């Protein structure tokens, strides 16, 4: 596909993605992808472990981060009202959006009101979630991604596959090729003699984007944190593209999920210590910007903040699942997940992949609505590595299990699944000693037949059925009087029927 890398014509979309097992199968067959992912996730895991070990009170910090988020969420209305009041007092215009469409409309209207046909963007999960670029494109407004990984994804007409590093599935030689092929169509071309050295690739991005930064009149950002008490917004980044967008244009629109609020300025301490170490494995990320409304003579003089729901209140109403809204988007859970490491992010069919995506998507969209979302709580081995690294202690495995039961509940009433029939049968069998005795006599035959017929093949296809013992426990007991006969084949002989 050689589509021009024009944000107005991008065709990549998560809409219509198949359910996780189908998408994962395709990803697993891509050996280049698996190699890229293994290399990247292991690099970042080691870095994270090193800098986390430096902090003596890391566990206490995690506990404080979780408690702060829980306390804020429990009283979210109060904090949102305070935030709105302080933002307004500091000179920002506050908008509220029930869903993606309303949020996109606000941004498009602001651009329109200034007669603009392009905006520069700071990497933002919220704007990716609401499909802002596509919505702006439909209005004839080009949205230029300025984060290096987002640029790689946009130029490659690709989809993001990681929260922190959306182009994690690409290696340096693929990135070089994308730059050589696509930069010219979007602005300043890549140098013809571009090598695949990361430093050279970064330099090419610097030159390519600088002309866009210097001419941009409007920027769109998200926010990592929004301080209620002061009306301060915070963006945490590495490259300086965030600073460019937050500083140079005249107009700035920030799309902020309602769960991003923290009560006080001092509370930033906990999160600014937890986030960089968990995310990029650094003591601190290169740049953090904070701004409180308009500063005369410095930075954008027109500020808009869009407070976004888009399913967050649905997640908030879920008593087990609401802890997912503590998430500070560090992506540590992706980097340690054995499933993510093998399938990559695309298989999750969402801008939020990995363990956190497997709970956030069903919590925000609801279960029983589409097959793809319902498949996500099963995209896990429940090993618990995600919980262990989570800087705000989200118990992802417990939420996954709870969501699985919600998915099952949502599908009651239709045709019963093989699993449901099997469980019902097992219940009846174990409920009666007569039926159990009967069943034991046929276990050997039963397992062989089930194997041949391919019943429940999705389960048995990747698992060996154990061989049934030649003699059941109760038959052995009857024959030997509970082992007191010291008959051959009894316990202690080493060849008993119980041993398998």
């Amino acid at each position: 596909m050689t589509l021009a890398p024009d944000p107005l014509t991008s065709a990549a979309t998560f809409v219509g993605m198949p359910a996780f097992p189908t998408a994962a199968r395709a990803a697993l067959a891509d050996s280049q992808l698996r190699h890229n992912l293994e290399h990247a996730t292991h690099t970042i895991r080691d870095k994270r472990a090193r800098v986390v070990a430096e902090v003596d009170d890391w566990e206490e910090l995690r506990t404080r981060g979780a408690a702060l988020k829980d306390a804020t969420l429990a009283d979210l209305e109060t904090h949102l009202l305070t935030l709105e009041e302080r933002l307004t007092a500091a000179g920002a215009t506050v908008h509220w959006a029930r869903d993606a469409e309303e949020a996109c409309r606000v941004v498009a209207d602001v651009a329109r009101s200034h007669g603009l046909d392009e905006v520069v963007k700071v990497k933002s999960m919220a704007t990716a979630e609401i499909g802002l670029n596509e919505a702006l494109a439909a209005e004839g407004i080009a949205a230029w991604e300025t984060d290096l990984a987002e640029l790689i994804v946009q130029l490659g007409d690709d989809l993001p596959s990681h929260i922190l590093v959306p182009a994690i599935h690409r290696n340096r030689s693929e990135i070089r090729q994308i730059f050589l092929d696509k930069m010219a169509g979007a602005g300043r071309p890549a140098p013809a003699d571009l090598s695949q050295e990361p430093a050279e690739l970064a330099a090419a991005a610097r030159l390519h984007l600088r002309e866009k930064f210097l001419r941009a009149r409007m920027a769109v950002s998200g926010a990592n944190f929004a301080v209620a008490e002061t009306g301060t917004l915070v963006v945490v980044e590495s490259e300086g593209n965030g600073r460019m967008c937050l500083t140079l244009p005249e107009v700035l629109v920030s799309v902020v999920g309602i769960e991003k609020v923290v009560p006080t300025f001092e509370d930033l301490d906990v999160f600014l210590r937890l986030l960089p170490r968990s995310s990029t494995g650094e003591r601190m990320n290169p740049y953090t910007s904070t701004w409180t409304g308009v500063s005369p003579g410095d930075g954008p003089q027109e500020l808009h903040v869009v407070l976004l729901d888009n399913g967050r209140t649905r997640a908030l109403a879920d008593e087990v699942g609401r802890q997912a809204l503590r998430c500070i988007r560090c992506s540590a859970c992706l980097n340690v997940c054995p499933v993510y490491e093998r399938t990559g992010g695309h298989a999750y069919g969402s801008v939020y992949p990995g363990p956190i995506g497997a709970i956030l998507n069903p919590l925000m969209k609801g279960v029983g609505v589409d097959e793809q979302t319902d498949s996500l709580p099963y995209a896990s081995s429940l090993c618990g590595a995600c919980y262990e690294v989570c800087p705000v202690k989200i118990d992802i495995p417990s939420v996954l299990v709870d969501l699985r039961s919600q998915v099952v509940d949502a599908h009651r009433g239709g045709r019963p699944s093989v699993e449901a029939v099997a469980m019902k049968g097992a219940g009846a069998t174990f409920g009666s000693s007569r039926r159990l005795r009967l069943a034991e006599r046929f276990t050997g035959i039963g397992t062989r037949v089930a194997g041949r017929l391919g019943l429940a093949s999705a389960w048995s296809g990747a698992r060996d059925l154990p061989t049934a013992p030649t003699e059941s426990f109760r038959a052995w007991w009857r024959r030997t009087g509970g082992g007191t006969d010291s008959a051959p084949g009894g316990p202690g002989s080493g060849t008993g029927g119980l041993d398998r």
Partner: protein
Amino acid sequence: MSARDDVLARVRAATATAVAPPLERPVVQSRPGDVDLFVERVADYRAVVERCTPEELGARLAEVVGERRVVVPDGLLEVLDQGGLVLPGAVADDGLAATELDRLDGVVTAATVGIAETGTIVLDHGPGQGRRAVTLVPDLHVCVVRADQVVADVQDAVARLDPARPHTWISGPSATSDIELDRVEGVHGPRQLHVVVVG
């Protein structure tokens, strides 16, 4: 119902039974930091960092900047107590456009706070620190941090900052980990960060 009222009503309904856990917010007295650790941690980011006495500062700056054309923000020489210092390539910021900043070589600023534990410098863009754009567009940032501005950790820095002001936290030169999660210095912000710790 407006979007605002609707979202707030949903929030209210969703949290009707939620109980906030008790929160303890420790009262933070900003602690001074270990200047040697600060220097070491700044250097870890592959920034250039050096120490000098207040008497040596003028000569150090003159040598670091040389003939380069650098923005000198209002109030810098006063804040640094270097009233007599002459930098031959100094350019005053009289509202320079971004394209003009892009043609300059660098900028020299003071700082607000240094954080020893993380090797971070915080600017609040007050006198001698310039507006945000001047420490962003040029490729070299020479930043002077006084030893008594160095605090122990993040909480000590947060306690010293005025939330009403814009802040820029800087930890080394601009960098990215977006290619195979390998850190590379030098993307959009200044590719060279030169820190002079005084005192």
